[in-house]
């Protein structure tokens, strides 16, 4: 299988503090890769380095085959990104948001129109297309935000704790969207601290104090750490943490 994201001893230091400490991993094309860790373990920093939002202190990494130091611009064209903070504009309508994001990725008008129509149909939001995003319930906004993150059909999408504050039903629906995207060949890199979500991933890595302590399929991890659920695995590993959560 083709490796679409690789990291080798990737490190980020802020002064004396090493936020991410020599992490190495490789992610296969089309994989759903769960990036787990307690708050402050360094997962957001690691993800930001891969997206080009943060400059690594040392180590190497490639995203979609491009080097994160030198080929930043090419990486930007190959990834979608959904941040922790909800990232659609409340004072724009659903369609205007899509037109905007399609626009800044340089999509053609025809592409934007067709894609918008198909997304609205898929989410059963045809009637809400001209409503302001601010008037929609949080769950819908989140699903829309995900659709917008993959609007330009990127090979990889980074999701930074996409399901924070959403009810379990919406989370299930959200994950079914992730599966659909994955089936369409999009590689998913997702951070979360919901352990039930970790079970949905093909493979997960668990970060503790800036290091990757474990990386395997959920089933294998449970076996190795002799735990019934991912919760158990996580607790066993996270207990080693010495760093205070931020």
């Amino acid at each position, binding site marked *: 299988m083709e490796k679409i994201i690789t990291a080798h001893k990737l490190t980020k230091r802020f002064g004396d503090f090493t936020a991410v400490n020599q992490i190495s991993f490789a992610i296969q094309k089309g994989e759903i890769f769960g990036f787990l860790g307690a708050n402050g373990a360094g997962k957001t920093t690691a993800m930001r380095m891969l997206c080009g939002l943060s400059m690594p202190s040392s180590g190497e990494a490639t995203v979609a085959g491009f080097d994160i130091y030198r080929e930043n611009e090419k990486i930007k064209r190959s990834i979608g990104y959904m941040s922790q*903070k*909800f*990232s659609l504009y409340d004072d*724009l309508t659903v369609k205007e948001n899509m037109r*905007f994001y399609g626009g800044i990725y340089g999509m053609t008008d025809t592409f934007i129109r067709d894609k918008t129509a198909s997304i609205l149909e898929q989410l059963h939001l045809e009637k809400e297309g001209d409503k302001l995003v601010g008037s929609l319930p949080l769950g819908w906004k989140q699903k829309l935000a995900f659709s917008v993150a993959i609007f330009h059909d990127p090979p990889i999408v980074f999701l930074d704790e996409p399901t924070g504050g959403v009810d379990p039903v919406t989370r299930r629906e959200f994950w079914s969207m992730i599966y659909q995207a994955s089936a369409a060949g999009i590689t998913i890199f997702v951070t979360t601290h919901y352990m039930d979500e970790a079970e949905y991933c093909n493979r997960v890595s668990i970060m503790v104090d800036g290091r990757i302590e474990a990386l395997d399929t959920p089933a294998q991890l449970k076996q190795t750490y002799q735990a019934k659920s991912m919760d158990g695995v996580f607790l066993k590993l996270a207990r080693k943490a010495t760093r205070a959560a931020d």
Partner: protein
Amino acid sequence: MKQFIAFVKKEFIHIWRDRQTLLILLGMPIVQIVIFGFALTNEVKNAKIAILDQSKDAATASLITELASSRYFEIEKELSSYQQIETEFHKGKIKMAVVLPSRFQEDLLHFNKASVQLIADASDPNVANTLTNYATAIIMDYQKRITQDRQLPYTIHTEMRMLYNPQQKGAFNFVPGVMAMVLLLVCTMMTAITIVKEKEMGTMEIMLVSPMKPIMVVVAKAFPYLVLSLVNITSILLLSRFVLGVPINGSLFLLVVESILFTMVSLSLGLLVSTSAESQQTAMFISLVALLLPTIMLSGFMFPLENMPLPLRVVSNLIPAKWYYNIVKSVMIKGLPFQAVWKETLILAGMMVFLLVLAIRKFKIRLS
């Protein structure tokens, strides 16, 4: 370019949907011009005065008529004793008292000399000054009229011409000031706020992850405010020309170009503020306190710079509005050509380049 257009479209939707802010942005210059034009003025009209005429002869009568018929004075009360003057000032209604001593006409005719006492309420020194000046001028006029048939041995005749503003209208001074203030406010504050808003909402991250160049993001955010500023410049100029009667003596083209230059300086300032502010409140606070206040006080628009102590005069050179204010006065009121304002223009251009380079260097392309 397509990306840029998509972005600018979105910015305009933001501005359009936020009706309140839009109304303030477009209405503010109009309100300011109207307020400055009709309410706030240094000119004194119809000031109430009291007269103590101890002579009651033909000369005093005609002098009093002169004073009363001018548009500056309105005679509130005729007094009969010196003590009453104090009482009237205490009541606070009159601003000045004119005392004409007894035997005024006799002194004038027989000794060629008479005196008039002007007593003004100097709790507001500017008004007191203005009123005594007006009164003196009227009295001088009167004197000139009655002496015209006689030849005085020596006379120095002063002839005054008020250049560029013969009627000495306050509007000639504040229209350039309001232009500087409005442009600074709209451009600096709004640019700072709108960029910080994207940071706060987390949408800035999305933008930086996209292929859109950071510099394009910044330019696209600032562009709509440049357009709004042009609308404001137009409305200010139209109002001052047709409502306040302030002429545009110089080249309109030059005036607009200089205004665009100042707008760009303000936008760069806003950008700089946005790079150091983390919340919209901070951005607003910095723009208002650190930029607007010094602009009002040190641009020469409210308080003459010539009277300030040296350190303040030095500081005033750092205020972009000071230079723009000078340019607008020169071009619009005095009708001077570019040769007269090239120095100021160069300074503004230098400021713009400096601020812009500083802001772009500080603007974090990678967020950390």
